[in-house]
């Protein structure tokens, strides 16, 4: 079995992973970084982000305002030391990206333009038309091509973290093209694999968002934090779940029910004067309530409401929201200049993830995580739109630097130990490939997992449906062991990769449901019908979920408060 050696391994080549790689190469040109991704980096799901990236840029804005908006948006579950560091570094990161070529949209005077976004008191969201994720990812990727010391492993699927002597020593990675398993040794590993939205039936997430990094950490004994907090983005297209950016509301779009009412204004959903620009969790809840009250529209793929951009005019839409127009026409046959877009809440982001500290470090020495994969926790119980892209940059950079520092002080595991672990993993993978005798079909398990999550961990949750989801997922885990696969090929076996991804999604799903059950309150994106109020007395803590063969173990971790004590979250 071939063993490759590098100083640091980064798993995942999206915004966080690429930024970490560049940070390491900039900090130390002699460092040798492996960027291991199951897709070529420009395919990473960062590419689909549309709205913008937030940073304080205007003189009428302040770091304190950005920090407070984020803390309040998180429903006071965000760690305030993390948030403080974030707002301080945000502008620096976006300026660096501009220097690297990112085509930020501009004001007439040549300065970077900003737009309004949900939950932000001032315009501080930098944008590049309405394809910010695309431009940021391509800028970062193209910039990273300058560094010969960033060694890319394109289309290598990391299957396991190798741990020896109480620290992470590397990974096993499946070369998807040849079917060969490699051991890649390093003194530090950074997980930047995004979230796991594909475990749910309706999601903005692409096929690759299967929670791989979260599962890798989970299986290595690292707890996942705050997994119950799953963000439903209010404006996704029915059936496909394709994202219609918050920027559509930021540019003045309205949300209307079947009666044409702007219900966020006409009725009290807690968003106050912010109306359509309230935080995502509140708007998603409002839409679900409108539909349950019978004021939704009925379609072939379920019920929905309308996003109305018709009053903005063609010129404005073409200038600021051209991609939105293209998506609406291509995927629902609607021209937003003349008609309203059908939308419904869909899973978009996971506030939860691998438990890390402000350096991006887990409690397993040598293991780091950044971006959506991590819960650091910047977003607490609910994330504000346009904070995530900046978060990937700020904490991608920090965790890269910290991982490098750690690697410099650490040591290598013996090659024999790594080979031994690699051989065991190789046998496991070979046994899975083309496993014909299983009776279960992958598509069936996937659909049932998604259905269980939809029923139990939707926008509104309650005790009985959560318990049912936990049971169903445990059962599916058992059935997964009996999976039957058809493809026995070694070369580019996508069925094998999908089976590994399904295992990862089951881990993530289990963590979500089991974390949600004991939280008997409503906070941020986690809303309980049976416990509709926030309970700071008993539940102001982060939930930890650790893997255990007998069923997930739930723990608690204190929230780092700071300048702001929890207050009522009203807009």
């Amino acid at each position, binding site marked *: 079995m071939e063993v490759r050696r590098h100083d640091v391994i980064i798993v995942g080549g999206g915004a966080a992973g690429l930024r970490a790689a560049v940070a390491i190469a900039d900090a130390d040109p002699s460092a040798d970084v492996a960027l291991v991704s199951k897709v070529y980096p420009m395919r990473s799901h960062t590419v689909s982000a549309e709205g913008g990236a937030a940073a304080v840029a205007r003189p009428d804005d302040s770091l304190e305002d950005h920090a407070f908006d984020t803390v309040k948006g998180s429903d006071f579950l965000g760690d305030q030391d993390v948030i403080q560091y974030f707002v301080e570094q945000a502008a620096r990161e976006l300026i660096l990206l501009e220097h690297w070529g990112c085509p930020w949209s501009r004001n007439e005077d040549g300065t970077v333009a900003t737009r309004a976004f949900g939950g932000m008191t001032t315009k501080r969201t930098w944008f590049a038309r309405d394809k910010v994720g695309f431009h940021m990812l391509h800028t970062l990727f193209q910039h990273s091509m300058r560094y010969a010391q960033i060694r890319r492993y394109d289309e290598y699927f990391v299957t396991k973290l190798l741990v020896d002597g109480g620290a992470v020593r590397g990974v096993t990675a499946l*070369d998807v*093209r*040849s079917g*060969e398993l490699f051991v890649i040794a390093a003194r530090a590993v950074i997980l930047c694999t995004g979230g796991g939205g594909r475990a749910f039936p309706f999601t903005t997430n692409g096929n690759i968002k299967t929670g791989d990094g979260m599962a890798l950490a989970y299986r290595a004994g690292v707890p996942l934090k705050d997994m119950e907090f799953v963000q439903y983005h209010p404006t996704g297209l029915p059936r496909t779940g394709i994202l219609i950016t918050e920027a559509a509301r930021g540019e003045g779009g309205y949300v209307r029910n079947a009666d044409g009412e702007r219900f966020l204004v006409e009725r009290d959903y807690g968003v106050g004067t912010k109306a359509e620009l309230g935080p995502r969790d509140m708007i998603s809840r409002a839409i679900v309530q409108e539909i349950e009250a019978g004021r939704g529209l009925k379609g072939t793929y379920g019920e929905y409401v309308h996003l109305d951009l018709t009053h903005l005019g063609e010129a404005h839409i073409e200038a600021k929201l051209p991609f939105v127009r293209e998506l609406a026409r291509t995927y629902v046959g609607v021209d937003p200049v003349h008609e309203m877009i059908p939308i419904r809440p869909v899973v978009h982001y996971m506030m939860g993830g691998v438990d890390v500290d402000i350096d991006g470090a887990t409690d397993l020495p040598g293991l780091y995580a950044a971006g959506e994969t991590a819960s650091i926790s910047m977003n607490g119980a609910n994330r504000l739109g346009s904070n995530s892209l900046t978060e990937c940059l700020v904490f991608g950079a920090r965790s890269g630097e910290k991982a490098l520092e750690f690697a410099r002080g650490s040591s290598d595991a013996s090659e024999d130990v790594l080979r031994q672990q690699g051989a065991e993993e190789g046998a496991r993978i070979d046994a899975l490939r083309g496993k014909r005798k299983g009776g279960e079909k992958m598509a069936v398990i996937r659909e049932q997992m998604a259905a269980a999550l939809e029923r139990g961990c939707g926008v509104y949750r309650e005790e009985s449906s959560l318990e049912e989801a936990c049971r169903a997922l445990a059962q599916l885990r058992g059935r997964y062991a009996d999976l039957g696969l058809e493809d026995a090929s070694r*070369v*580019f076996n996508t069925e094998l990769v999908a089976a590994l991804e399904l295992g990862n999604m089951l881990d993530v799903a289990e963590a979500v449901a089991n974390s949600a059950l004991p939280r008997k309150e409503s906070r941020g994106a986690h809303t309980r019908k049976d416990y509709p109020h926030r309970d700071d007395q008993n539940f102001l803590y982060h939930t930890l979920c650790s893997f255990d063969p007998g069923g997930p173990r739930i723990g608690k971790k204190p929230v780092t408060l700071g300048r702001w004590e929890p207050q009522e979250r009203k807009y």
Partner: protein
Amino acid sequence: MSVPAHPQAMAPSRPGRTRTAPPQRPDQAPFGGRYRSHTLFGATGFVYLLLGLLALEAVWALGGGSASWSGFQASLASPFMIAIHAISFVSVIFVGVRFFRLFPKAQPPRLGPVRPPPAPVIIAALYAVWIGASVLFAAILAGGIL
């Protein structure tokens, strides 16, 4: 249905870890769909070659005195020569139309503060100049003016 492309088309500098099937063209070259226009465009080079040889012959004839020049002019009236000229005429129009269609795209986005005029305007201007100059030259050569 599919035809092999050049065996090294889009090949990486070092072979990958697994054997690949060779690249296929999207259409039947040289005259299938996408290739038709490309092949004809390349073939016009042959036409230019012929015209070039004809020009050399004309210069040679000129150098030989007025008798040889008259002989050369008479030879241009043969059906073969007329056919060559007809094909050349079609080729030039073909290349011209193709080039004009692309010409607006090849303009830089702007020169200082000035942006080029919209594509239809540029194309119209090109045709105007082309047709105008052709008519003028035809009139001169036919002896109508000068």
